[in-house]
């Protein structure tokens, strides 16, 4: 067995990846890359091909076409070297319910050959240290999700695959999980997360890939997507007698600065807002469908 010695520029390199379930093409010619320390958000509705892509990259499914390299090694060869360096958080909470939180992590660590895992520290990071010796069957949904995240971290992976990591969680738990994911990226892990929550994609991702019906329809930073597909204008609200009047001023016209200065000086000015597009609005514009579907 050989040791990894390559440190590629891209932790994940995907080129023309395809997969189909019978006649249903779930993933069609998908290409992208994720650098170490980068978080790439896969944004798309249910059934768009997000989870299938992750399953191929984590060795759960064999691609029907295209190539993908994880840390410089081609996938699809049942490669324990790749498996040793990835962490996966599944959409379903597939934990051993009859085992304690500590036992779950220790067992998982032992599969990576980690003799003395720092399971308590990991549980502390996700706020479960005080429940370490409780069986997972007694945990709430949020606690189980935090367990899922902590299990994905147990081997200090170079790549994290997170499938809907905050789906259905309360805002506090979601925020805590996002913080932990960001810490992993800061450590240097490449993170590929799937979500249909545009707020989560916006808040977490360095770049976002829109995936719809198995194809990536756009991939860029959130900022660039908004600039590219959003309106470059400001919305100004002014008092108008008894009522309120709105005015939209394009930012790219020749008289923009003069008009803005004029309105800013007006005693009737109430508010000024940039008219940045949301990721969901861009997704709808690009695909003709919403993210909730």
């Amino acid at each position, binding site marked *: *067995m050989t*040791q*990894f010695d390559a440190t590629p520029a891209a932790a994940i390199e995907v080129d023309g990846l395809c997969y189909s379930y019978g006649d249903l093409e779930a993933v069609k010619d998908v290409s992208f890359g994720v650098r170490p320390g980068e978080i790439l958000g896969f944004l798309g509705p249910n059934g768009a091909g997000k989870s299938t892509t992750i399953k191929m990259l*984590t*060795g*759960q499914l064999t691609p029907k076409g295209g190539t993908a390299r994880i840390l410089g090694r081609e996938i699809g060869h*049942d490669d*324990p*070297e790749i*498996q*040793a*360096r*990835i962490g*996966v958080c*599944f959409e*379903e909470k*597939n*934990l*051993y*319910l*009859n*085992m304690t939180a500590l*036992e779950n992590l220790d*067992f*998982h660590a*032992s*599969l*990576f*050959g*980690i003799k003395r895992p720092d399971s308590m520290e990991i549980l502390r990071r996700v706020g479960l240290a005080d429940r370490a010796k409780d*069986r997972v069957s007694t945990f709430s949904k949020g606690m189980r999700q935090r367990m899922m995240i902590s*299990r994905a971290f147990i*081997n*200090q992976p*170079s790549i994290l695959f997170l499938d809907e990591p905050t789906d259905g969680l309360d805002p506090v738990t979601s925020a805590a999980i996002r913080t932990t994911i960001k810490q992993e990226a800061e450590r240097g892990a490449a993170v590929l997360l799937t979500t249909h929550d545009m707020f989560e994609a916006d808040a977490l991702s360095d770049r976002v890939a829109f995936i719809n019906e198995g194809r990536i329809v756009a991939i860029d930073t959130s900022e660039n997507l908004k600039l590219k597909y959003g309106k470059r204008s400001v919305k100004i609200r002014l008092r108008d007698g008894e009522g309120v009047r709105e005015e939209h001023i394009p930012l790219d016209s020749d008289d923009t600065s003069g008009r803005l200065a004029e309105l800013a000086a007006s005693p009737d000015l109430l508010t000024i807002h940039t008219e940045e597009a949301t990721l969901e609005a861009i997704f709808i514009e690009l695909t003709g469908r919403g993210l909730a579907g």
Partner: protein
Amino acid sequence: MSRPVSRRAIIGALLKKELIAYSRDTLYLVLTAMTLILVFVLFWVLPDSVDETITLAVSPPVKTLVSEGESSLRALGATEEQLARLDQADLTRKQPGLDLVEFDREADMAAVIEGRLEAWRTDDGELILRDPATGEKKPEGATRLVIDIGIAFPARFIGEVAAGARDVRVTVYSDATVPEEIQSAMKSFIREAAYQLAGAKVPVTMLDETSLVLGTDRAGDQISMRDKIVPLLAFIILLMETFSMSSLISVEVLQRTVSAVLVTPARVSDLLAAKTIFGTGLAFGQGIIVLALLGAFTASNWPVLVLTMLIGATMFTGVAMIVGAAGKDFIGQLFYAMLFTMPLLIPAVSILLPGSTAAWVQVLPTYPIIEALVGATVYDQTLAQLWQPLAYGAAWLVVLYGTGLVTLKRKVESL
């Protein structure tokens, strides 16, 4: 980064996890405990000896038959001395293998066999009849007689047969549970007696030893129910552990924890190896312990018992893999468990039933296992004597275990 992990370490970790999962599940523990209790209760409750005595009723009493036929016996050449000896003989005394109960009235004998009357005998040999419907008290110091078959002779049977009468009527009464073979044997006995009395010898030569027994002569040393049930109990252990193992596999598949394992350096082959070792070890270990506690091991049969249990345990692990992979929920898993294990139980049950086993039962995968267990535990047979069923069992083991491996592998890969 962690160092590459060895397959042995991964399988070891998976085995530890299986043990925790097994020990934490109340269902498996209750199932195992109940099975062990049932096994030992069944073993100790069953009789450890066989009563070979046949209780036969006759009416009228033999003395009546003899005195009525005395003149005929004289004509057949019996001397006064022989007749006097016969007159004094106590034919109702319990002979080895035969207990003769004499009834004065044919109707009473029929009622006892039918179950409408009870027959009790005191230590002095006095026969007491009791009608349970009247609620009368059970006789004190008397033993109840269980009579399954009785013969009603005409009082002048000997004389009439000796005189060559053609229409002598003898009635054989038997309980519904008496096998046809016993009834036929009884009729043959009467026919032969009639031939003898009529002065015509049956054209069959009997050796002095009375009969030749092929194989081991177990007269006076019959196999008790307790001995007979040992292989069945060992088999039940294997079967119950199949339920537990299939349930463990099913839970792992349904909760998809297996997917979490397979995104680590663990491979499907590691998972299958761990399941095989744990399932086989569990069933084999328990089976061997139970057999040891039941005193089934002898100096000559232990190799064959160990080998048989190993084949059986591995075969059932294969079945557990098929069942565990097939069920989509608990009910589904239970359905498949029943579907697969019930036919496999048939050979084990057949050993408790008299008569030879049907050909279709002998084809079932578990038949050679049962055959080898019976041979080893009941007849103390050795490996050399039982190699054929073991070879047949090993062939079935390859088929069932191979099918189990492929089924479970395909299932976990499709999750």
